[in-house]
């Protein structure tokens, strides 16, 4: 079933890098929803200085996550057999999520 040229034969038939790229995109989208809800919470409940600061931090965290995702996607696209995710990137992505939750606690209280 393989094509005559070498490139398709060498391509991963399971499309693993593509699926991983889309997983990063989905996760960024989930983060976008949280950031929008944070902005809504800050503006809805009478914008105080603390709530606006927390919402601004949420937006900054979303940008940081976007940057991590973009960097990883570039790495995935660069090589035919991409290297594994580095622990620093994994920790940074998880930390973004964690601090988003802490900002959420500040906004809720």
């Amino acid at each position, binding site marked *: 079933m393989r094509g005559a040229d070498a490139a398709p034969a060498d391509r991963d038939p399971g499309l693993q890098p593509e699926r991983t790229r889309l997983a990063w995109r989905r996760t960024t989208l989930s983060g976008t929803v949280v950031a929008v809800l944070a902005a809504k919470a800050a503006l809805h409940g009478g914008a105080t200085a603390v709530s606006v600061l927390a919402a601004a931090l949420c937006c900054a965290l979303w940008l940081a996550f976007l940057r991590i995702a973009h960097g990883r996607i570039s790495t995935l696209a660069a090589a035919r057999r991409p290297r594994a995710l580095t622990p620093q990137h994994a*920790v940074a992505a998880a930390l973004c999520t964690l601090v*988003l939750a802490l900002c959420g*606690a500040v906004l*809720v209280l």
Partner: protein
Amino acid sequence: MIGFVRSVRSWWAPEEVRREGATPDYRFSLANERTFLAWLRTALALIGGGFAVDQFLPDLRWGWRVGLALALLAAGVLCSLRAVNHWARCERAMRRGEDLPVSRFPALLSLVVAVVAVVMVVVVLTGWEG
């Protein structure tokens, strides 16, 4: 606890991890990465749920509303910490050729989500009358 501290240290020393064992097939690493991202999305969904409880149930009493929201946010924090820890443990097990780590966390999380959902149903049904 000592194991957890050791794995936290290994997050910051990727070269040390890379020296251990053999590099697994890149597809296994990518599958592990996608599992990590799925757990992060679960964490983000829990955090979004916390915001939603706070914003879309304004008629609830303050204590219930804030309590439910904080419970969901705390579950999100735990979930994101667990995501990165489990990713690191799986990565190490694959390098060493060991069995993948097993965990009670999914069972625990599903119980917590079920309890929060039941509490929310009860609170919404009774909170609007009171």
